[in-house]
């Protein structure tokens, strides 16, 4: 692997994008607007094309301004459709996404016909290519990231309140409409600067994955955002490094693969994750089985003089499904039951009797 100048530039840009999407994705996911990233990224395309058509200039500032304006327009239209019609959020997102993008492709074909223009630069916005990034792009991305970080720090309290309890925010005298607008603009900014690296379609992942991964590990917004930034930056750097070390490995999809992997691992292996839940369930089910074996032995022995009176394991099967040999051995190792005579006869020990009484009293009370 060769880390030369273009790779370093790409790493810087991708790292910044990972950081900003890490932050903004937390808000998007917590507000349950995960798919907004997808819609806004698509809605940016006609803006990029229009900006180019109007100025015939491919400088990132102009293209990003165009992208910002249609991105915000898309966002406004989505809100209008949701508020003014009976149509639901998913439909509004879908309409804006597909129509704006369709208009974008329409404009792209018009641009292709302008003899002087090469469309090549605009294509990167569709699929994303970090290696085409220039140092000027990194400055621009850096500047916008700085703005995003500053606003998040300044409005930390307001954003937090807005996201978890908008009604409460309003009673606290927070200008909810303004704060909402700020957050919208920040979201659009974060999406727009990511377009060049991961592209329109894959931007959806960047607006969801870091926050989802982080959410599995922490419960506080501040720690969640930090973890999310680490996930975002780490995956973007890893993606760019991988794509620069192998041929025919575009950066955008590689980043998506890496970050999806992180999400999968987080969902499976976090303290409350799927595997932990499965193990917990298994332990609980086993405990219940063992408890019922003990209490059944106790109840059966009540008809005899000796409360430790042994019973055939077949009797237990009738009462209690299948008490496996393994469970019985575990109980014996814990000193709760004993084998009498042949291997099939089991009776409670004194400790087992105490435990059984505890279980029965616990369940009857």
């Amino acid at each position, binding site marked *: 692997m060769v880390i030369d100048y273009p790779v370093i530039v790409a790493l810087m840009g991708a790292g910044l994008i990972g950081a900003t999407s890490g932050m903004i994705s937390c808000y998007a996911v917590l507000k349950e607007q995960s798919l907004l990233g*997808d819609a806004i990224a698509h809605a940016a395309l006609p803006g990029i094309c229009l900006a180019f058509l109007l100025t015939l200039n491919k400088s990132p500032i102009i293209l990003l301004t165009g992208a910002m304006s249609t991105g915000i327009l898309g966002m406004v239209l989505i809100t209008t459709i949701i508020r003014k019609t009976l149509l639901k959020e*998913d439909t509004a997102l879908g309409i804006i996404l597909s129509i704006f993008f369709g208009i974008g*492709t329409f404009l792209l*074909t018009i641009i292709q016909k302008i003899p002087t223009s090469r469309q090549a630069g605009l294509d990167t916005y569709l699929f994303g290519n970090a290696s085409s990034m220039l140092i000027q792009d990194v400055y621009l991305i850096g500047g916008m990231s700085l703005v995003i970080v500053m606003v998040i720090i300044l409005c930390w309290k307001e954003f937090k309140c807005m996201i978890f309890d908008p009604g409460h925010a309003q009673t606290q005298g927070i200008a909810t409409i303004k704060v909402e607008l700020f957050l919208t603009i920040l979201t659009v900014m974060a999406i727009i600067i990511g377009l060049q690296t991961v592209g329109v379609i894959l931007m959806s992942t960047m607006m969801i994955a870091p926050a989802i991964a982080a959410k599995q590990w922490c419960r506080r917004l501040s720690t969640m955002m930090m973890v999310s930034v680490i996930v975002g930056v780490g995956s973007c750097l890893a993606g760019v490094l991988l794509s620069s070390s192998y041929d025919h490995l575009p950066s955008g999809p590689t980043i998506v693969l890496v970050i999806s992997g992180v999400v999968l691992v987080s969902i499976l292996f976090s303290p409350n994750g799927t595997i932990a839940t499965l193990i917990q369930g298994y332990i609980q089910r086993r405990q219940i089985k063992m408890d019922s074996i003990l209490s059944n032995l106790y109840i059966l022995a009540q008809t005899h003089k000796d409360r430790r009176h042994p019973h055939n394991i077949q009797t237990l099967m009738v009462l209690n499904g299948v008490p496996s040999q393994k469970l019985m051995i575990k109980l014996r190792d814990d000193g709760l039951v004993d084998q009498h005579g042949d291997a099939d006869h089991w009776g409670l020990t004194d400790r087992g009797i105490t435990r059984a009484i505890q279980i029965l009293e616990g369940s009857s009370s």
Partner: protein
Amino acid sequence: MMAIIDIMIIGCLVSAAAAIPGCFLILRRMAMMSDAISHSVLLGIVVMFLIIRTLHSPLLIVAAAATGLMTVVLTELLIASKRIKRDAAIGLIFPLFFAIAIIMINQFASGVHLDQDAVILGEIAFAPFHRWTVMGVDLGPVGAWLMGGVLVINTLFLTLFYKELMVSTFDSLLATSMGFRPRLLHYGLMGCVSLTCVAAFNVVGTILIVALIITPPASAYLLTNRLSTMVVLSVGIGCVCTVLGVGAAVVIDASIAGSMCAMAGLVFILIFLFSPEHGLIKKAYNQRRKTIQFSAMLLTIQFFNHRHPNRNPFEFSIKNLTDHMRWSESFSKKVIGYAVQNNFIVQHDAATYRLTPFGEEVAKNAIQST
């Protein structure tokens, strides 16, 4: 010219086939699922292409439809893990599939027709030239046959399961208690969406099919409250958008798919503004009308409260309304006009009005009901 008509026919078949499952997606709040499916079918096509090395085999469609369904299943698995909300699950799975597909194209199949632009934009412009000939007889464009087939399948699904779909869409619990198996219907519907996306993928690309699945039914939703009317209307709207879109694209010589999208958007905006029942303008008008109705009622109460014999004429003048009720002069005139027209008040002299017996009733009722 023949080519343009062929394109229009194929486009209409696509939009009719797309609108049918689209109606149910919208009503079930799963519109974005079409976006997810339409992107992830690419993976199925790429994988199957790498295995059989040809782009003209029905196996491609099977594989692609299967990946579409797989997206749905995986998304539901993620949701069932309870670690992720529905929208986030949708937004995670399909970019992953798409990313894998793009990497596979770049690694193993670069330079094949499966290039990325064709995927996104489609190439309906070439569809008429890809014809189906049997023993030398030209049977028309393959795309038309394909989309026609999908339309037939979707229509069959709709007509066979219409009442089951309707009940499970509007009241899933009721459907379960009636023994309809909503989950099976759900996967059937998703299968239709998947099939439509795959078939349309070659013709119109991933994004336009989303536009055609969501936008015409959304427009129809704003026009009617009946499911059956909505389905018929959305098919009609889809076809109108197609014809207009293709026409516009031919005139300005631009992307046909893009132009169809733009037309669908335009039609949606027009209906959004002018729909006779749910339109923005009608709503604003109703709002305004209600304001005036309510204000006229307030006016009767105001007159009623000042009705003693030696009445102060000022209380009954327009000037009073602007001063005491803080209404603008033009608004006061509108309210008075409405009140006179409805026989709440009559002109008393040049500058003042008085209540009619009917107006007195109105005021009394209003006061009592509060």
